[in-house]
């Protein structure tokens, strides 16, 4: 098991290395010059050249990639050019590990920009995750138990409708209806305008209330898959021999469902849940943008609009690591869930 985890982590690191190299190559083919961006209107060619050297953009991509990887592992010093560091040691800035580079547009270290947005996206993802897992599985079971009835069709139909609906329209609708329009009979909107408040500042309740609407939006988008998987699993497992055995023992149908069927349903649910959560931790671009939630998704959106390439590279790597780690966690969970799975 331990050897397996180490092996998987190693392959994850290799994937990240490849990914960082590709992103840096893409960075170079982008039609913007970061040094030019930083310099403003009254810019001389000498000044642009100096900035380029200071950030290391004058070097070939492979050298830059090596410097980037080194920065992630042990940190690096700016200006990147050794000559410049020697000439003005008082101007040397250290970017400590994990250093993801320096953003010329927002004029800050990428790691601190990305790092300050991670808790927001993580809060949002976790809150939405809890909502959709609970609601999706419960609704899926209900739909299966009432297969073919109006209730079943309503649940499956509604979840598919939300899934098919463009996220921006769904988010805008929820935002407008619950946070902007006065609620009928109440005189004011049902929810305050969502405004992310860290637990350290407003306590758990304020944090939670402000998360509710965007998390609910995401949960609606994701719930369809869980309703379908749970529903079809519960229905199909009725044909399984071990469910027939459970019936033949004289067990109550509720116990068969909760103990025998749902235990087996864990495997498919954990599979998609891990991947969805891993993907969502990297930011929900549309939802965060619409609710003006300062997470990785909004940062990615804004950075794209502003051509803030170093930040984009940072977000890509952080989001990719979440996906890689989530995959690993899912695979480890298989061994916990299913006694037949052994890693060696």
């Amino acid at each position, binding site marked *: 098991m331990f050897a397996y985890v180490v092996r998987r982590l190693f392959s994850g690191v290799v994937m990240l290395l490849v990914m960082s190299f590709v992103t840096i190559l893409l960075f170079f083919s982008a039609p913007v010059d970061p040094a030019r961006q930083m310099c403003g209107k009254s810019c001389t060619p000498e000044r642009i050249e100096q900035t380029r050297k200071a950030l290391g953009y004058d070097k070939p991509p492979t050298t830059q990639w090596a410097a980037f990887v080194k920065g992630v592992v042990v940190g690096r010093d700016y200006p990147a050019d050794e000559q410049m560091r020697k000439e003005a040691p008082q101007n040397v800035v250290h970017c400590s590990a994990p250093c993801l580079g320096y953003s010329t547009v927002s004029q800050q270290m990428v790691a601190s920009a990305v790092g300050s947005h991670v808790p927001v996206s993580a809060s949002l993802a976790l809150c939405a995750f809890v909502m959709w897992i609970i609601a999706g599985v419960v609704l899926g079971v209900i739909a299966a138990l009432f297969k073919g009835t109006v209730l079943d069709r309503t649940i499956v139909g509604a979840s598919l409708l939300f899934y098919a609906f463009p996220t921006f329209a769904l988010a805008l609708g929820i935002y407008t209806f619950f946070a902007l329009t006065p609620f009928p009979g109440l005189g004011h909107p049902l929810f305050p305008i969502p405004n992310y408040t860290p637990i350290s500042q407003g306590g758990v309740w304020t944090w939670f209330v402000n998360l509710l609407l965007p998390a609910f939006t995401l949960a609606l988008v994701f719930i369809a898959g869980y309703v379908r998987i749970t529903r079809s699993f519960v229905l199909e497992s009725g044909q399984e*021999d*071990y469910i*027939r*055995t459970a019936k*033949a*023992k*004289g*067990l109550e149908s509720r116990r068969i469902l909760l103990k025998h069927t749902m235990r087996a349903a864990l495997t498919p649910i954990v599979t998609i849940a891990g991947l969805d959560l891993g993907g969502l931790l990297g930011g929900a671009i549309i939802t965060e943008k619409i609710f003006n939630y300062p997470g990785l998704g909004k940062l990615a959106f804004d950075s794209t609009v502003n051509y803030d390439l170093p930040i984009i590279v940072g977000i890509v790597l952080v989001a990719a690591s979440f996906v890689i780690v989530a995959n690993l966690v899912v695979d480890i969970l298989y061994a916990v869930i299913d*006694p037949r799975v052994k890693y060696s």
Partner: protein
Amino acid sequence: MTSASTSTETHTWQASGDDAQPLLSVRELRVHFPTEDGIVKSVDDLSFDLGQGKTLGIVGESGSGKSVTSQAIMGLHRGTRARVSGHILFDGVDLLQISDSELRKRRGRDIAMVFQDPLSALHPYYTVGNQLAEAYRVHHDVSKAAAKTRVVEMLERVGIPSPQTRVDNYPHEFSGGMRQRAMIAMALINDPRLIIADEPTTALDVTVQAQILDLLVGLQKEFGSSIIIITHDLGVVAEMADDILVMYGGKAVERGDADTIFYNPEHPYAWGLLASMPRMDRLRTDRLRPIAGNPPSLINLPSGCAFHPRCVYASDELGCREIVPPFENESEHPVRCLIPHEERLSIFETKVRPTL
């Protein structure tokens, strides 16, 4: 043990002319599955009795209705699209009439089942001990520790080595034979009066099959249970059964005690089954004699006698194409065949027996 049978919902069916009431009495059982292509008549007008402590072998090809019958007795068709009618009297109580909860109390406690493929019939995510203890605790209000003691005792009884440690193994850690032993232990854990074994040895190695059958026979003697053993393998029933019921196309075609069916069978299908047993004392080309043709479609059964398209003795004079042969259920040795009794005897003596 069966005090629940005094419930008001029970319906009794008066068996006519029987002195001792049989433990299980199936009358006019029909299990039909409506499908888009038509009604699948998996079991059609099936009747038989099973006495206390006796073993009944139900024999037939795939699709003859054997397994569907056993699942009907367990009430496993409830809540599905299957239409079940007739009477299944267990200890005087009609299992088709009682409520789900009444039936549930009997499942596993009075009637237990051993399934064909123990690997898929056991839950892969729970230990063998957990699953056996669950079967015990559904019907007995005992602590987990007491249930575990009982489980270990049963595992030991069915011949599982070092049951103390094996009890915590998962089904995939058992061999095929051990899994089936565990299934048998699970079936016997509540000391049931009737065990239905649905092809209990089909999924096992030939070397293990005989061990499992010996185990069942031994346990039956010890516990005094009745057994219904469902199989397509005449060798299996030869070893175990007191009575044999031969099924074809969802109907009983011949019934009698084991000696009668093996030494004086009268239905041409039973002759075919006997002839199809492999014989090592013949030339290699002649060792296997299959019954020609395929099992019938249960949606469109052949008219008249369902076996007539495959029967070499069928003829239009007898009306095999038009007349459904009757089945004298009350007789000792009923045969569903239009060939007159004397003629059947002479065909068997002159044409069939010499080739067996």
